[in-house]
């Protein structure tokens, strides 16, 4: 009987302690960190979500920028925060997978970031200018076979989504091309439109924005990209290349699953909001709505896909 009393008392105490921590969540403002500067796509998405999140969660959501190192400074900060759900951060794939793979010590590991949801994808495509002699991807491959390294492709960053797609595609097609990294998508698009590179790896929203001046040769999607249904996917051309920048939100390691669930639902509600979806589609984004478990599985899949590529090309 005494043992029963002790147990029930302990159980009761545990409940008392646990209930306010979880059932009450959230009860104070949540910091939503963007690991990039203001004005980028991650920022715009967070700004779109901010009022909707506040409405669902009933607390203030504060957007805070922590740029640097291509996002790594922000993610290194995230993993050091208290895992109580009051500090979350935007997460970007492939960044969170490729940085730890390519840098050795990026200040965090991919597994330490606990995904909440993924809500937006920007498929990566390979484009040429309208007046380019390359009508199809095969024209480009043939030319590259005859002239190794002469096809100059632009893209944003090294060990980035564009770079890894370039490496994967070159390997699959058995060709050699030159990759010229730029600091950010805007600069690579400018270099491309000015004719300083022959082809460009770019995100779907940039390709949609400049659609009237360019020809997209292929998209790294499983299904045809809705805004440009006539453009073939790399898969339909015989290349198993799936390339995309995916945006989502993540929490520090050890964040309780109950807290994650609350946030997951809030983010997925917005991701499934028809108005938000329509606006994303119009601007050239692909709305997605992957929950915490699906996001985790997707990230793990990407780690196994890219680890050998980075290992092979990083000398």
């Amino acid at each position: 009987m005494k043992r029963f009393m002790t147990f029930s008392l302990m159980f009761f105490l545990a409940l008392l302690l646990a209930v306010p921590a979880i059932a009450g969540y959230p009860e104070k403002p949540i910091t939503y960190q963007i690991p990039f500067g203001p004005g980028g796509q991650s920022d715009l998405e967070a700004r779109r979500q901010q009022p909707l999140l506040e409405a669902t969660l009933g607390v203030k959501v504060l957007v805070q920028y922590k740029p640097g190192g291509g996002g790594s400074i922000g993610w290194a900060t995230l993993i050091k925060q208290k895992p109580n759900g009051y500090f979350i951060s935007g997460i970007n794939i492939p960044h969170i997978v490729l940085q730890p793979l390519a840098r050795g010590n990026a200040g965090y590991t991919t597994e330490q970031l606990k995904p909440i949801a993924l809500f937006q994808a920007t498929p990566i495509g390979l484009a040429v200018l309208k007046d380019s002699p390359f009508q199809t991807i095969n024209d480009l491959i043939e030319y590259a076979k005859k002239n190794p390294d002469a096809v100059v492709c632009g893209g944003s960053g090294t060990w980035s989504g564009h770079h890894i797609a370039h490496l994967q595609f070159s390997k699959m097609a058995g060709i050699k091309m030159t990759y010229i990294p730029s600091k950010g998508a805007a600069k690579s698009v400018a270099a491309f439109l000015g004719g300083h590179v022959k082809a460009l790896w770019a995100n779907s929203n940039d390709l949609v924005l400049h659609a009237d001046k360019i020809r997209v040769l292929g998209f790294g999607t499983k299904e045809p990209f809705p805004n440009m249904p006539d453009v073939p996917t790399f898969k339909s051309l015989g290349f198993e290349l799936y390339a995309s920048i995916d945006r989502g939100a993540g929490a520090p390691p050890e964040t309780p699953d109950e807290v994650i669930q609350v946030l997951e639902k809030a983010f997925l509600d917005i991701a499934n909001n028809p108005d938000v979806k329509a606006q994303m589609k119009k601007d050239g984004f692909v709305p997605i709505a992957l929950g915490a478990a699906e996001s985790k599985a997707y990230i793990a899949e990407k780690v196994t896909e890219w680890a050998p590529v980075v290992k092979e090309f990083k000398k």
Partner: protein
Amino acid sequence: MFDFALTGLFQVLMPNHFLVLFIGVFMGIVFGALPGLTATMGLALLVPFTFTMSPTAGLIMLAGIYVGAMYGDAIPAILINTPGTPAAIATTFDGFPLAQKGMAQHGLVAAAVASSFGSLVANIVLAAAAPPLAEISLKFGPPEYFWLGIFGLTIISTLSSGSPIKGFLAGSIGMILSAVGMAELGGDIRLTFGFPELQGGIELIVALIGFFCLPEILSSVIGQRRTAYAEKIVKPSLGVLREVITSLFKRPVLMLRSAAIGTVVGFAPGAGGNIASMVSYNEACRWDKHPEEFGKGTIKGVAASEAANSAMAPGSLIPLLTLGIPGSPPAAVILGALMLHGMRPGAELFTDYADITYSFIMALLVAAFLVTIIGSFGSFVFSRIINIPSRYLAPAIVFMTVLGSYAIRNNMLDVWIMFIFGIIGYVSNKLKFHPAPIVLGLILGPFVEEGLVQSMLAGKAAGGTFTYMVYRPISGVLILLCLMSLLWPIFAALRAKPKKAGVVNKSASEGKEGRDESR
């Protein structure tokens, strides 16, 4: 086009839009004036608010913020030697010495008037010739950026008149500092000594606050026990207003040249105002009849820098509005705002959405006038700030520097870096090293590196790096400019010789001839 411009102007002058614009300009000045808060941040914070407004009102407000911030950064540059944004570095060169002479109001008014003038010129260019200029801007490839960066570095020889060796040494230190962190191009990690926190590199604003602001505070309190921050008390008056404005209008060449430099550097995507104001200051100093006045406090120096960095703002909107390529970080935020309001940059902005687009351009124009008015009358208030006794002002400034260094990236490490640079800056000032070349190296290092790495990769693919980098029309012009700039000190020395002999009039006329020859 003209009727669109006129309807745009009417739109802006409607009471509700005008109020929104006024608020925007005012907030922009505040964001520009506080080091660590940037125009980009101000714009990004306000984008959500513009959702609730009509696209026209929203864009008018953003225009106000952008223009306001381009002037606001001059206020701390003049008063406490701290550029509010990197674009105002060159404003400190003469602005702060002016304030030290008790002429803070002269500097503030010159900055406001020059800012407005720069905006005005660049806006007219934007409204009249955006599409063809955007095409030219695309001709800037990696080699052009490389040579533009090198041209920027040749300014060091002007900045460090007296000891070019010290100047170039400091410039190299700046370039090494710029390499700290993740190389954005190659993805390698450099000079972090194993600390992942340093992967973000050294933030320019943090370095600016450290090198420019802290040393001045330290020297005002260490040993001297000065009661006031400036050596002389400022007495603002309406006479100053008239004096500065008339003296600036007597120098149309200086003003036009500065505005033109700002516009051109602005529309080349990615170059930004930091370089524009430096180049403009350098040219002002080079062509002036009394170059020795520069750096010791002349409104000409303040005007050259501010006209250029304000002209840069509309300039950077040229590739944005016509091509959808943002020429500066604030322009990137404006691109986001346009997209969220359902407008896509490109030809349709000037056709389908012409009414909104021209309202935006006109808002930039009207904002420029508001800056003159707010700046001129504000100068009575702002200039008195440095009359506050040092024992109150110095701690307040130190507090602001800490806040500003932290706010820029929400990173405590930046505050420590700022303090370390502050101490280095104090010591190097004592050794007669000017911090400007260090900061110039820090700004231009990544710029030159980017151009060089990309040129080498592209040149290899094209069959010859040297031919790829040199045999291009714009490259050729830039290389010539670099050579002229490097050889200038020799030419100037030759020009100065007769002056020493006492033939003042003759040397002035020779100077004029020399100028015509180089044209």
